[in-house]
């Protein structure tokens, strides 16, 4: 371990990693890109990567190292893939503002084009999950009920029955999932941001993920019907108990005060 990290800090390490990564990406492209369009794509791609690298050196390099190799302040980004970048940057988590138990979601400061450039650059460092296409994460036609069962097996333990979020150890937490873009939910499952484990396609199929997104869409969106009325945050008995005490019993006591109060006397007025 020690030897490895010592080597990792070598000034040339970044270059070596970068070269390897570029070679790998180039090789992959050579293998997979359609032959006739390959030439044009490659130029456009390398331009994008170049732009991404510029953005990276301004916004990310201070923590993740000049070549994405990672420092004590941030993990290595080699091999995390474009999907991870798209998730982290588009939800505003990256760049992080301050160290803490967990990096929170905040307002995103990059345009989608910039995020794509960053993602392309990071993807060029090492192969990883790609940004999903709309057909992958669009929940239309998915099985909501199946998604519910999958959600309760895989997700509810941290994110609550309907994705309202919950506590993890030592100040960490699983965030609420309301208003999260289906694309980002998909990316989170695929890449496992921060302490969340990943649910790669090999163990949770694309179909499974779609079902989960469809379920969340049904139970935790602006259109979700709460047939009983106010859902009190969907947090279960704690908020119900608080409501019962404050408003339920509070109303009873207010009524009791009225019932037991003396009626105004004629003389005093």
């Amino acid at each position, binding site marked *: 371990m020690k030897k490895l990290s010592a080597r990792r800090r070598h000034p040339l390490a970044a270059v070596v990693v970068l070269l390897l990564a570029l070679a790998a990406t180039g090789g992959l492209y050579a293998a997979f890109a359609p032959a006739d369009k390959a030439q044009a794509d490659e130029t456009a791609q390398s331009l994008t990567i170049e732009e991404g690298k510029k953005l990276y050196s301004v916004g990310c390099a201070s923590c993740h190292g000049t070549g994405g190799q990672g420092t004590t302040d941030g993990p290595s980004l080699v091999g995390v893939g474009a999907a991870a970048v798209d998730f982290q940057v588009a939800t505003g988590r990256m760049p992080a503002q301050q160290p803490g138990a967990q990096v929170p979601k905040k307002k995103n400061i990059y345009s989608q084009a910039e995020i794509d450039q960053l993602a392309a650059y990071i993807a060029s460092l090492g192969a990883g999950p790609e940004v999903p296409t709309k057909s992958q994460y669009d929940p239309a036609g998915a099985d909501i009920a199946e998604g519910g069962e999958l959600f309760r097996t895989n997700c509810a333990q941290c994110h609550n029955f309907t994705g309202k979020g919950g506590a993890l150890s030592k100040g960490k937490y699983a965030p609420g999932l309301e208003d999260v873009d289906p694309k980002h939910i998909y990316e989170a499952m695929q890449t496992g941001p921060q302490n969340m484990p990943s649910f790669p396609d090999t163990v949770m199929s694309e179909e499974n993920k779609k079902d989960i997104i469809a379920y969340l869409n049904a139970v935790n969106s602006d259109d979700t019907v709460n047939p009983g009325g106010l859902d009190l945050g969907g947090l279960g008995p704690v908020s119900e*108990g608080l409501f019962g005490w404050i408003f339920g019993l509070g109303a009873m006591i207010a009524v009791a005060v009225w019932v037991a109060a003396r009626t105004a006397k004629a003389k005093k007025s």
Partner: protein
Amino acid sequence: MSTTSASSHGESRSRGKAPAGERLADWADGRLGIYSLAKANLRKIFPDHWSFMLGEVALYSFIIIILTGVYLTLFFHPSMNEVEYHGSYVPLQGQLMSEAFASTLDISFDVRGGLLIRQIHHWAALVFLAAMFVHMMRVFFTGAFRKPREVNWLFGFLLFVLGMFTGFTGYSLPDDLLSGTGVRFMEGAILSVPIVGTYLSFFLFGGEFPGGDFVARFYSVHILLLPGIMLGLVVAHLILVFYHKHTQFAGPGRTNKNVVGMPLMPVYMAKAGGFFFLVFGVISAIAALVQINPIWAMGPYRPDQVSTGAQPDWYMGFSEGLIRAMPGWEINFAGHTLVLGVFIPLVIFPLVLVAIAAYPFIEAWVTGDKREHHIADRPRNAPTRTAVGVAWITWYVVMLIGGGNDLFATHFHLSINAVTWFVRIAFFVAPVIAFIVTKRICLGLQRRDKDKVLHGRETGIIKRLPHGEFIEVHEPLSQEQLYSLTAHEQHAPAELGPTVDENGVERKIKRKDKLRAKLSKGYFGEDGQIAKPTVEEYKEITSGHGHH
């Protein structure tokens, strides 16, 4: 009202025959003796105070629970047979679930008004327990548990405890993922019982958890056994309230030998009867507007699934806090395991409740009081008792916080481990602090009362005297106020008596008596109460200079 209209109507109709209402009453009297019963009770006096109506809130929510509960049994299937759901709630269609869960879904989505009745039932249960809790605290802080009401205090306490378990068995019935997790916890707790734990668990669940029996078994406990006992206790509780007559706060004309207020017929029939409808109305409105226990969002129970934020209803929350804060102690010896991490909380759970239930008897022993008490204490005038009560509530609330430690962590951006450690420490420290602080506050309020009696009420009017001094004008209190503020009794602490008897032989004083004398000093010694103003003090101040 109805009798008067009936009688006037009857009179005009026939001369020789008594009116119909009277004839019916005569008929009933000949068989049931209702006139003798009504003689004592028709004009029974009840004092007016809002805090005396908290018990009524509990009574009425209990009635509401029974009414709505009967309705729910018409549709609920207490069975754990697996069925595939094909009702109208889309996100569960095609899922496997127990019949209990499926029928609860049907009540919520396919029976018109079923959801409303379910929500009234559940909200009324939360209010029932909360109302019993505050009613119990009202009785505690005003000393209304003293002779002759100790037995009724125990009846009330039993009702509270049975209410907790009726609630627990009730919310476990739908067999949803949240309540199932609670039942699993219960099974784990039973397993921790030394020697017989596994047997108890196998007998309760008809084999290994979850088995196929517990819903049906909980059902008969929830709708028959526990409510049956509770109904009996409620009747006994009410009979005793009638028999003892209600306590009242001290005031002009209100003594230990009378009860001042309005008669049952007509004022309290209208007020108490009306209050039932008010309570029912408020709970219905809450059930119309605020969702409770959305089992469809939780899904059917499966022992391998769970959600974060798994908590019981609030009245079981303190036991949840106990178990969450407990360190994981486990002792293995000679092929056996003593699961202290679970068993200790399981033992403390009833002790927490017994602590408050036993207090009246402890106080009676310390004070040696054998008289009847019908005047409710103002909490400040019994500082030690009030401090004990607040310490107990603090203890209870600390455990409630422990039961919701994960939600406290997420909503106040704290570490769950820090919250747990806070609960572990506060479990021991917070009640002590609460005791000390409350006692100080009570004594402060007693001093203020004394000040008010001697110097009058602060009017807020500032006057400048000829020599330039500013003073605030104090208005003397009326005789009524003076009496009310000084009506409470004050005792001197118990003395151990001479340590040497008349023959000069040293008496042996039992440790129990030493403790009793010490406690008595805590109640009535210098630090236990502020002496009431005396006649001399009052005369000296009022006869002397006008102000001050």
